[in-house]
Structures are given as structure tokens and as C-alpha cells.
């Protein structure tokens, strides 16, 4: 199986600012990849280059095609949901289905109608009559009815309530994903996707800060929680990151000796959010957003 996405020195400039800074990236088929980074890190810019929505410098091949020159042909094998509620508001559901069927060679009307049958959406609804959650359901039904090899989701559930968000990812995993397909997701709600991801890419200031599989994360990273009297001993073992939560000290270690750590306190597999905070702060970027992440992470642990 060839690589779905292959980038060498992928760069995007806005004036003097490097939004994406010489990224090397290889994503094989059959993976669910989370692209995670703070606002303005270059996630959306990188996705736009991959989807042929923006020009770029460097080498980029998606399913063997150059996205900026072959967007139309690429879109036969790639689907994307870029942001919530971008379906045209004037269109009726049945018109949307007919248009997609006529334009997209791999769209299955039957599949789409099957997905829609479990929702409250009817063929005569106009998109502007649908709630935000229903619009996302409709878009997902359209996208899942397309037999594509790569699905790109850019903040697909932003602003939705928890029921729709859960259902979104459940549908995606149960009805859509298989070994042939690749899914690339960016989201701020890391906790929601971390259980479905197979690979993790952190992006920061246009550069890749971390690129590894979830198995590798579990193998390489360990979280240690100790009482404050053991903190000094833990610090001596060279942790990547330390935080304090309700009087306990939590340390993140990479490639550490688990037996030695276990003697000091409780061991956990770190959550993606914790790993993210540690990776970002290591590079000396602790801005407001990362603090917010830390709180989310703390909440999850507590």
C-alpha cells in the first residue's frame, strides 16, 4: 500500500510569516491521524495545502497527485469537512443529494439515505431550516456515502453539544472506517478523539513537534504521580514535565525505567492532552491556550 500523504519540505508563506515551515510528513493508508496544535500553529494551513485549497512550496503528494494542480481529480478520492456548517443554506436535502450523486462518481445515494433515515432530516428540508447539529449529521451522511480513500476533518464538531459529538465519532468508526481508508482529524477536543486515533502529530509554529503512533506513545511515555515528599526523587530522574494537581506532583517521563518510577508512586499512561501540554511547554510556549489545555487535562485526571 502506498502512502496516502507524503510531504517533503512543505512550506506555506503569508508574506514574511511562515505558517507551515518545511514539514516532512508521511501518512500511510489505514490510519486515523490526529493533527493537534494550538491556534495559529498551521494545522488548517497544512490541511488546505493537502486538499488543494491553497498553494504551497515544497513537495506534496496526496494519493499520488499534486493537490494544487489536480484538485478536481483528487476530490474523487478525498472527502473533507472543513469547519462546521459550510453546506449551502439555500439548498434542499434532496437537491444536495442529487447534485452530489451527479458530480461525484463514488457517491452512493442508498448509503446516504440509510444514514439519514436514522435522523430527523427529510428530503424536503432546506439546510437553513436545520439546526447546527443536524447540518453536521447531513454533511457526515453525504461524506460517509462517498467511497473515498482519505477523509479530512477540520474541527468537524466545533460548537456541537456532547450528544452529537459522541454520535459523530461513533458513526465514523462503526460505519465508515476500515483498513483501506485513512482519516485525518484536527480538533481542540483532544479527549474525544484520543481513543480512536492510531497516530498523533503535534504541530507548533508551523513545525512538527511530535509524530508517532499511539502504541509508541504508550511504550515511550509514562506518567508518574507522587506525594510531595517524593517529588525531589522523581525530579532527579529527569522528567519532561511536571505539574501539581491537588497536592500531588505529576511527572511525565520519556523512555524511563518503569520499575524505578513505580517505586516512587502511581504510574499511568499519559493522556494526549497531557502529552500535548508537555510537548508544547518543552519548546518554551506556555501561552493562555496551553494553560487551558492543562486545566482540561487536569479535569480529566481528577
Amino acid at each position, binding site marked *: 500500500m502506498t502512502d496516502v500523504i507524503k510531504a517533503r519540505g512543505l512550506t506555506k508563506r503569508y508574506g514574511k510569516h511562515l505558517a507551515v515551515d518545511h514539514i516532512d510528513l508521511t501518512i500511510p493508508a489505514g490510519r486515523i491521524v490526529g493533527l493537534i496544535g494550538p491556534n495559529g500553529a498551521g494545522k488548517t494551513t497544512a490541511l*488546505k495545502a493537502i486538499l488543494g485549497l491553497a498553494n504551497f512550496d515544497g513537495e506534496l503528494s496526496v494519493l499520488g497527485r499534486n493537490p494544487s494542480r489536480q*484538485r478536481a481529480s483528487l476530490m474523487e478520492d478525498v472527502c473533507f469537512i*472543513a469547519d462546521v456548517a459550510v453546506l*449551502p443554506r439555500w439548498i434542499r436535502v434532496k437537491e444536495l443529494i442529487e*447534485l452530489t450523486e451527479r*458530480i461525484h462518481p463514488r457517491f452512493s445515494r442508498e448509503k446516504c439515505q440509510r444514514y439519514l433515515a436514522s435522523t430527523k432530516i427529510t428530503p424536503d428540508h432546506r439546510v437553513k431550516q436545520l439546526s447546527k447539529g443536524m447540518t453536521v449529521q447531513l454533511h457526515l451522511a453525504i461524506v460517509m456515502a462517498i467511497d473515498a480513500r482519505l477523509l479530512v476533518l477540520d474541527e468537524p464538531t466545533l460548537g456541537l453539544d456532547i450528544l452529537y459529538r459522541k454520535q459523530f465519532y461513533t458513526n465514523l468508526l462503526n460505519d465508515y472506517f476500515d483498513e483501506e481508508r485513512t482519516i485525518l482529524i484536527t480538533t481542540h477536543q483532544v479527549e474525544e478523539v484520543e481513543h480512536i486515533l492510531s497516530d498523533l502529530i503535534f504541530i507548533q509554529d508551523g513545525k512538527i513537534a511530535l509524530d508517532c503512533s499511539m502504541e509508541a506513545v504508550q511504550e515511550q511515555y509514562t506518567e508518574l504521580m507522587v506525594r510531595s515528599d517524593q517529588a525531589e526523587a522523581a525530579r532527579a530522574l529527569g522528567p519532561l514535565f511536571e505539574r501539581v494537581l491537588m497536592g500531588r506532583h505529576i511527572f511525565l517521563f520519556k523512555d524511563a525505567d518503569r520499575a524505578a518510577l513505580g517505586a516512587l508512586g502511581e504510574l499511568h499512561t499519559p493522556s494526549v492532552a497531557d502529552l500535548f501540554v508537555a510537548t508544547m511547554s518543552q519548546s518554551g510556549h506556555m501561552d493562555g491556550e496551553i494553560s487551558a489545555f492543562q486545566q482540561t487535562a487536569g479535569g480529566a485526571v481528577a
Partner: protein
Amino acid sequence: MSRLFALLKREFWENRGALRTTPIVIGALYIVGTLMAIFTTVHFDNDLYTFKEAVRLFAELPEAQRANLVFQTNLLAGSSVFTIALGVVVFFYLLGALYDDRKDRSILFWKSLPASDTLTLASKLITGLVVAPLIFWVVYLATQLLTAGIAAIMVMTAGENPWTLYLGISQPIKAWLLVLASWLTNSVWSLPIAGWLLLVSSFAPRIPLLFAVLPPIVFAVLQLWIKFLQTFTFSDNLFGVLGLWFANSPLILSAQENDNAIEVALGVPGGNTFDHAVTLGNMLDRLFSQQMAIGLAVGAVFIAGALWFRTRATEG
């Protein structure tokens, strides 16, 4: 081909109000106006005496004159209101064609479908320049047939045979087809303007109307001013060029005197570049002129610009 058809359908669905409802409302108003005129006549003229006199006088005219009078009326009277509405509808349609989906961000959905930007742009140009005139023409034809029927009944109540009086000799079908030919040739003639509107539509950050109208005005006023400073005269500026373009258009818009008779004319007669008599030959003459060649070149530059902006509409 099926993709282009789907995109054309999309344009029609999105612009049903402008493309379908507008001509139907105009046609309905036209019919209602005709009926109101008849009722007014009947109301003040119980035995239709005046009307019958008019028909009798008309019947006394020589056949050629009768035929010409009805032919000319068919060309201009029934079509002018549709011609103007079509112009307005196409103007605003093209102005919004590449703007609306950028504004509501649905461009992100359209660009997720495997249809190239070139095909999308083509579908919009075809909708404005071919589909819109065709829809307007079908509705125009329906109103013409209806009013012709009403007129025939009226003439029969006056005791004359409408077929021998005018219908059989005035070539109504030729007049209706000439109207269609005039609209379609004008679509080609207007390509530089359509291209300009699409270009504005593809880049205007907001209020495309302002971006479409202001630059030409500023440009022309500057030209006028510079010319005035140099020679103390006003001539040869963008206003003049556009005015001449309009005056030379193959639209059936005005009337001119020909052999002491008033005859319907293409554009606005005045210059001697083109023959303004309403014939298919004169319409085609405009399409194979030097002016058209320049217009096509200008239009091509504008449309290429619109395509350039369209492919980059999702940057940033």
C-alpha cells in the same frame, strides 16, 4: 458533461427567483395589463364602436403595410420589458456568481466536490449568457401566444378574420425567433462586460456592486479630467466607449426612420459603424467585427482573472 449539467442545475436551483420567477411575474403583469386595457375599452365603449372603427381602418391599409406594422410591433412592444429585465437579472446574477458562496463559506463544500474551477466558472457563464435568455424567451413566447390569442378574439368580435388581416402575413414566428437571436448574440457581444462582472464577483471582499461600478466611473472621470486639462474638450473616454458598445449592441431596443416609415432598430442608431435594421445578418455582423474581436480579448482577460481568483478563493 453530466457534471456540467449538474452544475447548471445547481445555478438554476440557487437562482430560481431571478431566473424563473422574474420572467413569469413580468409575463403575468403583461397579460394582466393587456386584459385591463381591454376591460377599460369595453367599459367606456359598450358596443366597441371605436375599436371596430380602428380595426376597419387598419383593414383598409395595404397588405404590406399591415404586415410590417404588426411585425414591428411584435418585435419591440412585446419584448422590450423582457429585454430590460433580462439585462438586470443577468447583471446581478453574474455579480453574485462567485461572491455568494465565498460570503457564506459554502465554497468549502463546493470545492470538496470533484468539479474543477474552470467547469464551475463555465457553468456560471453559461447560466448567465445562455440559460437565462432561453428561460426568458420561453416565458416571452408564452405571453406572446396568449396575447395573440386575446387579440385574435377581439378582432373576430369586430367582424374581421385575424388570419387574413395580419396573422398569416406578419410572420410572428420570425419576429419571436429574431428576439431570441438578438438576446443570444447580445450575450456574445456582452462578454467583456460579463467577464468584468465575474472578475469583480471573484475578488470583491464585500459589496460587489460598488467594486463593479466605481472603478469604471473613477477611471472615466479621470480620463475626462486629463483630457480637459490637455485640450479643454470632453471626448474619447470610458463612458463614450461603453455608450458606443451599448448603442451598437444587437438588442432590439429602439426605432429609427427608414423610407419615411418608423422601423424597429438594433441598439441605438446614430453612428455608421453598423446597420441597425433588425435582421439576423446584422446581428451576426456585429459578432464578426473588429470591435467584437477586441471585446473578446478584453473578456478573456477578465474571465482568466476571475478563474485565477477563484482557484485562490480559499487561501488565507
